[in-house]
């Protein structure tokens, strides 16, 4: 169950990027998830809303792109209302 730590890492990374843009409301976060990353997609999706609580990402959804034969764990985009 290290997925909560990973989810918190995602929230932190996106909050930083959001800050650099001067804020906005996050609708969704896009993540490349490698099959070899050691992270379970379902557990990550369950942990994500918890990790978002009390952050500017609260209420956003997580869009996961599965990548075979990769260890990627990378936030690629955020969908913003601005």
């Amino acid at each position: 169950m290290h997925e909560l730590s990973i989810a918190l890492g995602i929230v932190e990374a996106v909050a930083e990027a959001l800050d650099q843009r001067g804020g906005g409301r996050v609708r969704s976060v896009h993540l490349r998830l490698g099959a070899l990353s050691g992270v379970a997609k379902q557990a990550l999706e369950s942990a994500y809303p918890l990790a978002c609580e009390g952050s500017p990402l609260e209420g956003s959804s997580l869009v996961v792109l599965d990548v075979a034969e990769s260890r990627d764990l990378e936030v690629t985009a955020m969908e913003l209302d601005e």
Partner: protein
Amino acid sequence: MTLKTRLVEVRANALKQNDLAARALRRKFEEAGTFVVSLVSSPGAGKTTLLEATLRRLRERRRVAALVGDLATDNDARRLARAGVPVRQISTGTMCHLEAAMVDRALDELAPGPLDFLFIENVGNLVCPASFDLGEALRVVLFSVTEGDDKPLKYPTIFNSSDVAVLTKLDLLGAGDFDLGQARWNVEAVRPGMDVLELSTRTGTGWERWIDYLESKRDQAKERPK
């Protein structure tokens, strides 16, 4: 003003915070000439037993210390402290793995002074520790002959994130159905070329090779240009 929805590109690793902390630790260790070895395995594979004996042996000629992670209790720290070296328990509460920031904090609290070797025993878990860099120079994955010889096939991620595999409790070979040849083949299947050391802490089989291996890896790291 109407709100527009737009997609903004972000390039950030979800483990960025841990990776940054681990990188800072690694730089610190390299500058101090400390060779850092982390141990990962399932609970009960013999990390603490191997580590206690290793600390005893290395302390004869090296400055050594250890950090040990568990969800609760300081039993392992007390066991390791019998080796007569500085030891600090990291109690993770409900966390299933160690992170670089925990290592940094524990090291500050332990303040062991200059070290030749620092050992970090991770929480017994073959899944979660794989994702978290601790700033170590060598990650050792242990599995014992009382487990299944297919452990590498079942948990490829931890084998892929480790540098060397150590097969423990060799004195118990034959007590179950563990097939040594099959185990070696399984390691090779998930991580071609991975070093595999086979040993028994109890009987001393393979023990010198393990100590020599640690020393030679430390020497190689010292020779590497910074």
